[in-house]
């Protein structure tokens, strides 16, 4: 067949593929237009401005790194990363090379999409053409690359542990059908090309050898058309499945990366951007292992992968929405970077349990006037040793402070926010803002990361907000506090709201290292485990919470630390209720100990002196 003749070759077997491709292309374009068209004007403007800025090449680079190379999955597990990369990047390269190959041999003619896909069917004599060997070799190599990924994917179905996953997502029937179609595509391509190569002594180092081998005992001419039909069917079926299955993530993730680069994010209610995020979830299931409800309590049916899936198709059950500690560990590990926390928070807002005037009765509190306002918060009041130690340090540093909620306070609103009670939270926040503004402080310090989070995110106060670990470090840096380092071994536990919530990881460590030696646990900083005391979940029993706390503590105590330090009164309380024998202390208590030691040493020196004199 002379390909550079005017005639474009055709055979009916290309129809399943072509119809599937047209269908999926129209569907995707239609969806993209629908989603973007319903964005707010502000967001549309962001896209327009971003389109002609550096953000576009940046987004392209990210698409390359994440959608094709799967950098984040690689960071998690090399084998898992390779599996994803060989499938995505390998397939991508096959398409690119296939197109180059056809364009090259047809002297730059624009061909219908089926030509490069089924090129071996239409052209049997590639080897004899210029650079023919190069192309057939490369195409075979790429096919092998993709097949190695498919092989790993088969393997992962039976044993996922070597690929770094204890649990994988339980897929629905349609997802399994689509998966089967996907898994069949490349073996069928290998078969069709090998059969052709065998019959015509064509193909590269793999297809040719397999073809030659099969020729020795099989009537290949009988399989010729059947194998190409099967390959085309597998492709077409997969394309038709895409919009209705998790494979919608392939095109949608690309859109998501661009939109995110242009500055579009989740709002405080669901939008079509949410739908983009939902459709970008590949249900890879990496979030399942990250969730402590699964690893510690064996609850493996409520993780974000399932939550997002049911959000995409219908309404998630109460169980799915509520069964989350809001620790944000899944957010942290999601390779697509879906803002799961916001989506879940918005979904929780659907039910408002409180009335408009639920908090009318609150008017009795008034925060005292102060320069440095110290706010212990509810959790601080439940752990008096924390605020006592903090205030003792303030005294030593000569801080002009006022313990504004000493006699009582209104809840900061964060626990309500975490459970979706937005309206009720707003009422409390408004009251608190007035009270805090009226106390005339120039700095607000709190011991509670939960309060610190909502003060920072939702209060819009005009004064700086410090968590006590930050403020104590500031005092130390200003030489207002001097600590004496001892050889005490400390493991620091990052509280969810302080770490992942506010990004405060370094200050507490810097402060603690002034008092003793820090030992890092396996899961620290962004990967820190939740203590189990989360206010974001209401359907856990005390026993379940204790189980989580014990497991987290055993991770923390693994380095044989003398003390587990935390910077959150709730974490301290939760840990203490789970363990009777590990010493748990707030950062302020440890720092107070370090100050006192130096003071004690002075005293003991004096005593020694007097002893010597007396002698």
């Amino acid at each position, binding site marked *: 067949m002379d390909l550079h003749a005017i005639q474009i070759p055709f055979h009916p077997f290309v129809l399943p593929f072509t119809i599937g491709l047209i269908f999926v292309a129209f569907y995707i374009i239609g969806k993209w237009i629908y989603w973007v068209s319903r964005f707010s004007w502000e967001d549309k403007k962001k896209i327009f401005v971003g389109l002609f800025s550096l953000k576009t090449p940046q987004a392209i680079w990210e698409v390359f790194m994440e959608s094709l190379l799967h950098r984040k999955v690689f960071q998690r597990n090399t084998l898992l990363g390779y599996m994803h990369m060989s499938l995505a990047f390998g397939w991508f390269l096959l398409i690119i090379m296939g197109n180059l190959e056809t364009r090259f041999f047809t002297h730059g003619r624009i061909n219908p999409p089926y030509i490069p896909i089924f090129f071996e069917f239409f052209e049997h004599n590639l080897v004899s053409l210029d650079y023919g060997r190069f192309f057939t070799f490369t195409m075979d190599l790429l096919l092998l690359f993709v097949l190695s990924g498919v092989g790993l994917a088969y393997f992962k179905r039976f044993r996922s542990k070597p690929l770094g996953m204890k649990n994988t997502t339980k897929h629905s029937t349609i997802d399994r059908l689509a998966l089967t179609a996907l898994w069949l595509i490349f073996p069928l391509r290998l078969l069709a090309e090998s059969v052709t190569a065998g019959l015509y002594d064509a193909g590269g180092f793999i297809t040719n050898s397999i073809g030659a081998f099969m020729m020795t005992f099989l009537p290949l001419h009988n399989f010729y058309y059947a194998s190409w039909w099967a390959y085309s069917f597998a492709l077409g079926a997969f394309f038709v499945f895409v919009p209705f299955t998790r494979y919608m993530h392939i095109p949608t993730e690309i859109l998501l990366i661009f939109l995110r680069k242009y500055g579009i994010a989740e709002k405080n209610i669901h939008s079509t951007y949410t739908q983009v995020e939902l459709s970008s979830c590949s249900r890879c299931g990496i979030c399942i292992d990250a969730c402590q409800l699964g690893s510690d309590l064996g609850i493996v049916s409520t993780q974000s992968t399932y939550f997002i899936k049911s959000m995409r198709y219908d309404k998630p059950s109460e169980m799915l929405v509520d069964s989350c500690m809001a620790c944000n560990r899944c957010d942290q590990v999601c390779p697509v970077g879906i803002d799961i926390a916001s989506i879940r928070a918005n979904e929780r807002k659907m039910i408002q349990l409180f009335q408009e005037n639920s908090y009318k009765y609150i008017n009795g509190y008034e925060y005292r006037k102060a320069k440095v306002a110290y706010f212990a918060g509810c959790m601080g009041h439940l752990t008096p*040793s924390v605020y006592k130690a903090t205030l003792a340090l303030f005294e030593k540093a000569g801080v002009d402070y006022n313990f504004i909620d000493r006699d009582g306070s209104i809840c900061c609103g964060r626990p309500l926010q975490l459970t979706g009670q937005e309206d009720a939270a707003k009422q409390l926040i408004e009251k608190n803002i007035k009270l805090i503004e009226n106390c005339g402080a120039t700095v607000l310090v709190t011991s509670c990361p939960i309060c610190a989070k909502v003060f920072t995110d939702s209060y819009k106060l005009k004064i700086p907000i410090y968590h006590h670990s930050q403020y104590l470090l500031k005092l130390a840096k200003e030489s207002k506090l001097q600590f004496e380092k001892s050889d005490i071994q400390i493991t620091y536990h990052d509280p969810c709201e302080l770490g992942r919530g506010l990004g405060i990881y370094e200050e507490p460590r810097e402060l603690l290292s002034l008092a003793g030696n820090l030992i890092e646990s396996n899961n620290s900083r962004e990967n820190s485990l939740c203590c189990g005391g989360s206010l974001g979940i209401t359907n856990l029993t005390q026993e379940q919470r204790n189980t989580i706390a014990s497991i987290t503590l055993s991770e923390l105590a693994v380095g044989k630390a003398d003390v587990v330090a935390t910077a959150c009164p709730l974490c301290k309380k939760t840990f203490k209720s789970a363990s009777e024998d590990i010493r748990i202390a707030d950062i302020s208590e440890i720092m107070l100990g370090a100050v006192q030691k130096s003071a004690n040493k002075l005293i003991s020196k004096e005593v020694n002196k007097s002893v010597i004199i007396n002698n």
Partner: protein
Amino acid sequence: MNKIVAVIGGGVAGLETSIQLEKLGYKVNLYEKDSELGGHAGKWDRLFPNRRHATEVIDSLTSRIKDKVQINLVATVNQIKRENGSFLVEANGKSQKADAIVLTTGFELFPASKKEEYGYGIFDNVITSAELEKMFADHGKPQSTTGKTPEKIAIIHCVGSRDEKVNRPYCSKVCCVTAVKQAIEIKEAIPTAEVYCFYMDLRMFGPGYEDLYKEAQVKGVNFIRGRLSETSEMEGSRVLIKAEDTLSSKPLKMTVDMVVLMVGMSPLPSTEKILKDLELSPNNDGFVQVKDYHLEPTHTKAEGVFVAGACTGPNNITDSVNAAHSAALEVHKYLTSK
């Protein structure tokens, strides 16, 4: 007959068991980790419901012990081994043979500092019921840290009892009546004092308990149904307490001179080691699991190992004495049939 029974723990249950076994003709090795006999009751000032002095009861028990009981004081049992159908009990480096064992290890008072929001160990004038007993024994009345006589006192029930958050979901039984007894004693020692009891339920199950409760009300003790939520320290080491009055559904704030925590009965951690040696496991609450709660309450699942007293769960003195009788009889039946 020269069979030997090891009784571990020298509180009310251990003493009574030893007395009964001795009467039945056995040689008893009694181990007590403290330097004196009597256990928790020995450290108490007066007992409910009739408010007799605890020393009366303990002295009566110790005086009835005769010379066939070898009393080992400051003797912590480190290991129990089975050997040829009997036991080897090791304490303070010395091993002694025993043909049967009675566990009377008792309980520990709930470590109140675990309930950090109540401020025990953090604020000066937050004390436990045991410390109040000691004040009564030493001074005849409660005294704040500055030596002043408190005028307003809050008594908090259920500290370390019926509280899942500190892993003590069970009722300690005796604290309600103890609280009522102590409230009356405070009123008698300081007639002008205001006394408030914060309770969940008042479980007045024993003879004379209800009378005691009525007496307290007549004497002007205030009972508020609601749990304490938190405390904080005010000027002059007074204590601000926050609670909810659940009968009027209102939050409540009060500044008092002293807070008395009615600490419950918790499993004694050192009993766990002994149970491990004997291949026994604790019950859900962490106390010693008895063989049959209804029918064999002083047996354990291990052959030759019996149990009495508060190591099986919260108990009053009468319960302990009854269990001790029963355990002694069961030991006798076991050793004579062997």
